[in-house]
């Protein structure tokens, strides 16, 4: 992952972050909310190699830590998403190229979003945070996974195209 691509990916992620914070978070979704940002980040991470996924996980987590609406300690999202990036890249290698298997891509991203939130809750418990009742947490995790499953089918093809602009000719090969 080149520095320029890392910078460009960070820009894309910041764009999604702004949309998430200013628009998507205002929609009153049934069951629970949908994180466009997480969906986009996991989609980009799934297309990267191990190094790129870890780096992108950290960058994405760092941006998410900047969110004024979050109560968790600064760096928590960076830590979790770095770990997710690593786990993603490990499992991704066994699946193969996602651009040729869109359904697997969608399912992978949705599962990743669910896993991210579960790990976030576990880390919250370790850090002694109060995240509300187990039922509401379960609802949030399930709802977000469901909405990611529905919306990723619309979002991910565009994201793949957007990412292809950032690739160098060598990386394309």
């Amino acid at each position: 992952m080149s520095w320029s691509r890392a910078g460009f990916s960070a820009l894309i992620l910041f764009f999604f972050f702004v949309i998430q914070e200013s628009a998507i978070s205002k929609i009153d979704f049934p069951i629970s909310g949908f994180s466009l940002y997480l969906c986009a980040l996991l989609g980009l991470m799934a297309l990267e190699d191990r190094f790129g996924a870890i780096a992108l996980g950290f960058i994405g987590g760092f941006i998410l830590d900047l969110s004024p609406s979050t109560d968790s300690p600064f760096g928590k999202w960076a830590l979790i998403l770095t770990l997710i990036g690593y786990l993603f890249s490990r499992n991704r290698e066994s699946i193969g190229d996602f651009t040729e298997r869109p359904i697997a891509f969608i399912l992978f991203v949705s599962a990743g979003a669910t896993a991210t939130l579960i790990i976030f809750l576990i880390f919250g418990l370790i850090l002694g945070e109060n995240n509300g009742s187990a039922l509401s947490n379960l609802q949030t995790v399930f709802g977000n996974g469901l909405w990611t499953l529905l919306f990723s089918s619309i979002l991910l093809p565009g994201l793949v195209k957007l990412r292809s602009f950032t690739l160098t000719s060598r990386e394309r090969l």
Partner: protein
Amino acid sequence: MAAGGNNRSRLLLVILLVTSLFLITLDLRGVSITKNSRSATQTLLAPVQRGVSDLFSPVGNFFSDIKNFGNTKDQLKNLKKENAKLRKKVIFNKDIAGELKKLKNVLDLAGRGSYKVVSARVIGKGSSSTFSQTITIDAGSNDGVKKDMTVMGELGLVGVVKSATSTSAIVLLMSDPTFRIGVRIARSQSIGVLMGEGDNTYTLQLLDPSGSIEVDDVLLSLGSDNNKPFVPGLPVGYVKSVKNTSATLTQEANVKSYSNLSSLGIVSVIIKSTNGGPKDALIPRPTPTPTTTVYVTQQPTPEASPSESSKAKN
């Protein structure tokens, strides 16, 4: 190569995890840099959020609106029902207000005439097929209403009680063709007989051949023995036009009644009148007509200068 790449990735992973833990530690220790970064993001996002908020507000509640669609429908149904109820109430209140106004006027007139009255609501009107002009009121002998008592409205005479039961009474209206009442002209004190003609017009026949009638003369009831059937001094109507017939011995005039018999809501039955009656105290006072005064100030017109007038000539 792969092993080298893995090592690089592992190293990066360790570095980034340590960095993350370091950031968490800093935040938990209350270092202001981490706190400030969030407030800086807030400052950056605020204008965007404000702009998007206006644009996004209809979409924001889209899902909740769908979810609450059934509830909204029920709510709308309930509101419609409530609205219909309130409309009925408003109409009822308007009706009550109208009745109250009429009652106030009736009582006001009765008070000025020092009449003891029983007020009643008009609950029925005689069928036009009977050719008699009557109304039914909801006061009867239990309230002290008896046959041959004078009935008045907010502006004057309405009729006379024809018959009374314990709870209601039938009133013969002054417009009935059989209705006759002795009246006096307030201006000239000439006396005459007023006769109903079946509509809103009446004929006045003076008893004194030398008496004079003029247009807009006010007619007051003359009164009967023991105030039955008529009390004295009650406004009856005014002269609309004088009939010029040389063939008859007495003068006649067309009269218009003060009471509008087609819109009677509340009436009062005069149970007792003071001795001698109110004399001329109940003569309706003419309402002053407001006059509009217009002041016109003439604007001075500027005279044309000699140079301008010469230009005009050219």
